[in-house]
């Protein structure tokens, strides 16, 4: 591929920043080589199949280097509901001890990504990097901190763990690794929160490994500021009889993309993914999922709802792969999308790649306007048109919102989502 000057320039401008990053000499060399390769490859573009619907040219004029720490407003966490459990706060990818709780859930231990920078770097990449891996590669190049968490087998803390990622402007490279031992059980709530006016670029990477029989309920609430560009790449390995649930609520950002790859690696593994993408104004919200059924007897369910208004754009690109031999696979995928204005646009690509015969796989996708029959029913009961429309719009996203736990979090999200709808006040009490 030829170089892409528009994207390359922003990456090339990162070069001087490398010298300021901590780590051994070997790491410094690794970073220089990796960035050089990235500059040569460029950022992914819509010409790369998996980036067909996301265009990062917005980054051309952005500063991708991480800014020096600066004082934060005292009420910086006010936008969030009260902490549901121990909270770890990272500011532009760096741990912020004053805002964080020192205590961790019982059975959990934490180290920092920073400790890895004293050891050997990963092997050097030779040749071009696959488009899907470039932002991961950029993250590893720039990350200086990040939680490495281990929940010991059998532990089941009663309260959720919260990780808050604050962006203050410039580049942020949050990096999280979470491992659950056999039978461990955890609720993880992650916030992506912008501190206005943040012209931020966030490239987050999360790696999760679930041991046999482990259960993780992972909720990601994306409240980036209106000018932020956020790309989040999460990769989960689900072990035997383990269960991974993900809830995504994407409300913020100028352009936000969530890449979620889930490997069902052990028999009996389950994944349940739900997400709400809200693209109003000139916002872009993209989700890409890859569900890889690698072994028999696994099941997966996906349920995504997209709403685009104003000049907003959204996309759902979901792929389910069933590998040869992965018999007794069950997989469901649903993507429904609502366009609220004439300049809004949503693209969907629900893909199935099936290489085993003893499977039950289905997907459904719809894009369009509100259901005429539902609207008529509400009108015949005397509701006015505006209320009926608002009500149906809210009900449309209800499938995702209703399963968000705990209640305080759900209520906060409902408030925020409702606030973006026309006639919000009139429908508050209708919600089932």
């Amino acid at each position: 591929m030829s170089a892409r000057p528009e994207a390359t320039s922003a990456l090339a401008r990162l070069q001087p920043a490398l010298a300021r990053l901590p780590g051994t000499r070997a790491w410094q060399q690794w970073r220089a080589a990796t960035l050089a390769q990235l500059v040569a490859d460029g950022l992914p573009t819509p010409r790369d199949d998996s980036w067909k619907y996301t265009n990062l040219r917005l980054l051309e004029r952005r500063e991708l280097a991480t800014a020096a720490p600066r004082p934060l407003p005292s009420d910086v966490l006010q936008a969030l509901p009260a902490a549901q459990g121990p909270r770890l706060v990272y500011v532009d990818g760096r741990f912020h001890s004053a805002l964080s709780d020192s205590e961790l859930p019982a059975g959990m231990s934490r180290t920092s990504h920073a400790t890895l920078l004293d050891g050997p770097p990963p092997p050097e990449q030779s040749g071009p990097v696959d488009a899907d891996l470039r932002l991961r590669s950029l993250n590893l190049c720039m990350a200086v901190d990040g939680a490495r968490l281990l929940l010991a087998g059998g532990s089941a803390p009663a309260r959720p763990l919260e990780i808050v990622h604050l962006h203050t402007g410039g580049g942020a490279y949050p990096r999280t690794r979470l491992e659950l031992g056999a039978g461990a059980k955890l609720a993880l709530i992650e916030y992506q929160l912008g501190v206005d006016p943040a012209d931020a670029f966030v490239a987050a990477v999360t790696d999760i490994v679930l041991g046999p029989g482990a259960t993780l309920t992972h909720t990601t609430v994306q409240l980036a500021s209106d000018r932020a560009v956020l790309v989040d790449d999460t990769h989960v390995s689900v072990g035997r009889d383990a269960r991974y649930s993900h809830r995504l609520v994407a409300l913020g950002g100028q352009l936000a993309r969530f890449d979620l790859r889930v490997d069902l690696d052990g028999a009996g593994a389950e994944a349940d993914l739900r997400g709400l993408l809200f693209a109003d104004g000139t916002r872009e919200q993209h989700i890409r999922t890859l569900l890889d059924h690698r072994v028999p007897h696994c099941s997966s369910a996906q349920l995504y709802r997209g709403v685009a208004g104003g000049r907003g754009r959204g996309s759902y690109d979901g792929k389910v792969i069933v590998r040869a031999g992965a018999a007794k696979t069950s997989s469901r995928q649903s993507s429904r999308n609502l366009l609220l204005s004439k300049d809004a646009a949503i693209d969907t690509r629900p893909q199935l790649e099936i290489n085993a015969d003893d499977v039950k796989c289905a997907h459904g996708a719809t894009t369009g306007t509100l259901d005429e029959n539902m609207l008529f029913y509400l009108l015949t009961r005397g509701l006015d048109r505006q209320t009926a429309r608002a009500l149906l719009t809210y009900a449309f996203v209800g499938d995702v919102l209703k399963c968000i736990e705990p209640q305080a979090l759900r209520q906060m999200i409902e408030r925020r989502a409702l606030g973006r709808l026309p006639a919000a006040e009139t429908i508050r009490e209708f919600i089932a």
Partner: protein
Amino acid sequence: MSNIQKGNSILEISGLKVNVQGKAILKGLDLTVRAGEVHAIMGPNGAGKSTLSQVLAGRPDYAVIAGHATYLGEDLLALAPEERARRGLFLGFQYPVEIPGVNNVYLLKAALNARRRHLGLQEVDAFEFLAIVKEKMVLMQMDESFLKRGVNEGFSGGEKKRNEILQMTVLEPTLAILDETDSGLDIDALKVVANGVNSLRADNRAIVLVTHYQRLLDHIVPDHVHVLAGGRILKSGDRGLALELERRGYDWVLEEANAE
């Protein structure tokens, strides 16, 4: 509503012609319904029975191409669906739509208050409303879990029909049009539904039952029976007509009409 007297005209339809997706379904229909009356409109499948119900409720994609419908002295066809509802016209749907995520009971409260606002009455608050709806739920033999569910969400066919009648008993309409309310009901459920409907029979109200079978009329005895076929009312009579239709089918009515 209270000033409507038995025998006052509630609905007058004349020469109504309706097209659905370019196809003529109603071809000049006349019907008069007065306060205190129960009418049954019967007819073979595809006669236009459901079209009539939907048009009276204001379904937007059904095109009225000729005729009039006057409801309580007003031009019914000029009103939006929600305006018709607030003036006391209630349609019990043949296939009530499921609306997941919209709470059943809140919808009903909003519907009741929309009607009360129109009548110049004070809106009911949540406590008053709950008292009303619980009383009606006893009548309709519905359990309280219903209160928490989405509109018709995951309801069986019979539950949906009961829910329609429950809404009707709460809203106390002036004109209730019940489209095939008996279809898909077992005999016990049919009795419950009939009880609900009968509880609303009153001198200041009219009920139009649209049905394919006679059996509902064993439980809700109509004052007038009409045969709707080929987009027109071909024959009208009393209860005896329904029994005759049960015995002889619809063909003889069609033949009679053709002979004229």
